[in-house]
């Protein structure tokens, strides 16, 4: 059990800057997801925490103690890799026992810990098998088991579910949550899958261009994104972004969007940005067919079970809206949309959210 604190971490591979002065704190017992597109440096970050790579600058603290210069084995962390990295020449039992053996645990201690981990993860019947005789899900469990046998201060997960099929991934997500609750351990979990991030984490840190773009609880990241990148990265279908100018007309402020020949009434509070160029963000679920100020030409309807996603175009803009599952209209027809102005998100020209 320990807090993880990263201070001003920088790392380059050759000339390419991977991480730039990154700081992040994962509270004791927290389950923090590091979410970002591929190549954003999230796996590098995890390897730095584990000590497998060295940062160019910055410091790492685990449980209040600095581990910056320590070898991986002296940091008291455990890591589950995307490829599982099970030792192919060892049986499941030997894989589970390896971290204990390397730390000089006694035979009885090893036996009881292996038994406990196997019980926790349902591996009892597989202990004598070699990794190649296991299914993907079973390998995954062994990898997690190997991480938890020695009760480390910190668990690191590097996209551990990305090699599993959808059904199994969902089951494993639930199991990961249970495991976290049961062990009450500090966990850092790297993924590029926002659904995984939203459902698993008590906190999410969105990483892009070597920096933490925003960190906070999943709900806050989704509903109050710090900038355009976070707004665009979170949510599927993607948020609608309407660039324009705030103009004051008649009674209140409107968004004037010449490329879409659009004048959209804004909440009164937006009046303070009069004359400024902004980007308006509207989540697709906040737009639905009905009487409203916004209309677009229907391009196609995506049926996703409990609801439909409408893809519309208006001038140069592509819009996405949500409709009931049974919504029907011919392509090419103009569909008017009801918007919820209180849910509008505003971003300045640098992409920062305006409050």
């Amino acid at each position: 059990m320990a807090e993880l604190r990263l201070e001003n971490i920088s790392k380059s591979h050759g000339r390419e800057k991977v991480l730039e002065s990154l700081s992040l704190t994962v509270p004791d017992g927290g389950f923090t997801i590091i979410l970002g597109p591929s190549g954003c440096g999230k796996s590098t970050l995890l390897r730095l925490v584990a000590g497998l790579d060295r940062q160019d600058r910055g410091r790492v603290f685990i449980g209040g103690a600095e581990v910056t210069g320590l070898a991986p084995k002296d940091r008291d962390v455990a890591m589950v890799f995307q490829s599982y990295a099970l030792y192919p020449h060892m049986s499941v039992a030997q894989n589970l026992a390896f971290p204990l053996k390397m730390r000089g645990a006694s035979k009885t201690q090893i036996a009881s810990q292996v038994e406990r981990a196997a019980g926790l993860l349902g591996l009892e019947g597989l202990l004598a098998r070699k990794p190649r005789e296991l299914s993907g899900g079973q390998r995954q469990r062994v990898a997690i088991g190997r991480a938890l046998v020695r009760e480390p201060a910190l668990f690191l997960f590097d996209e551990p579910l990305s090699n599993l099929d959808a059904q199994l991934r969902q089951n494993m997500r639930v199991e990961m949550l249970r495991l976290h609750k049961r062990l009450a351990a500090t966990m850092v979990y790297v993924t590029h899958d926002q659904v995984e991030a939203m459902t698993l984490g008590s906190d999410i840190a969105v990483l892009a261009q070597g920096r933490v773009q925003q960190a906070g609880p999943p709900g806050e990241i989704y509903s109050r994104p710090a900038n355009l990148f976070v707004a665009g990265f979170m949510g599927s279908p993607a948020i609608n972004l309407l660039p324009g100018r705030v103009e004051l007309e008649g009674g209140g402020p409107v968004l004037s969007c010449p490329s879409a020949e659009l004048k959209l009434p804004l909440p009164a509070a937006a009046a303070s940005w009069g004359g400024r160029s902004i980007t308006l963000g509207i989540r697709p679920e906040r737009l639905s067919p009905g009487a409203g100020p916004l209309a677009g030409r229907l391009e196609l309807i995506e049926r996703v079970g409990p609801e439909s996603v409408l893809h519309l175009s208006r001038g140069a803009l592509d819009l996405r809206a949500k409709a009931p599952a049974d919504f029907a209209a011919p392509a090419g027809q103009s569909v008017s949309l009801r918007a919820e102005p209180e849910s509008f998100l505003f971003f300045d020209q640098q992409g920062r959210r305006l409050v």
Partner: protein
Amino acid sequence: MRSRGQKAAFWLAAGLAGFFSLAPFLWFVITSLKSQGSVTAIPPTLLPEGSLHFYWSAFAGYGLLGFVLNSLLVAGLTTALTISIATLAAYALARLRLRGTGLVLGLLLAVGMFPQTSLAGPVWRILQALGWLNTYQGLVLPYVTLTLPLGVWILTTFFKELPRELEGAALIDGCNRWQALWRVILPLSAPGVFTAAILVFIYAWNEFFFALLIMSDRARQTLPVGIALFQGQYTMPWGEIAAASTVATLPLVAMVLLFQKRIVSGLSAGAIKG
């Protein structure tokens, strides 16, 4: 479904290839089992009498056992040293993120291609200066030098194919670099290590040129030189030479048959990922 013609052609080609490579070997095995009289008989007889006389004579009269022991010692030491050094070198070349590892590998390959004749003079001078002529280390040293490129190449290929994450896991699980290499990387590279070891062993076992050059003392000579210098008083001792050649070949054949599976997977590694 293959036609009969194709099958027949296949077996004919395979049979011919097998015959051409095995015929000399078979011939001296047969010769080694003949009696003194039938060795030089004209026309030669195909079926030997099954006499072990030449074997007895080779060991008792020509000191074959000494050559065998010398060869075992030299080839064994060469293999052990080459594989140890090559393992460390290959691990570094495969894993360190340094510039120029490609250049190092290229240079190694180039060094491996030097004609031996061009090395003979300098090697002899160096060994003479060291006082290592007619010593085991005097032969092992150039053998290690000459076989290292091969060993490093084979092992580098192997190490490169192992996922980096395996070492990461080992390091996090409590290993230092040495332990990660010893407990995780090497066991998984066993086919590569075996392949390299056997090829190096065969090289050192069969090498003639340097062995002839460096070991002029009959008591230190290895099998190829020892056998080549078998001298009778009036005639060439063909029977003893055949017997000694059989003795020299058998360990290699046994070893290759024993590790056949591993060598095949070792030699074909890199072709298919697996």
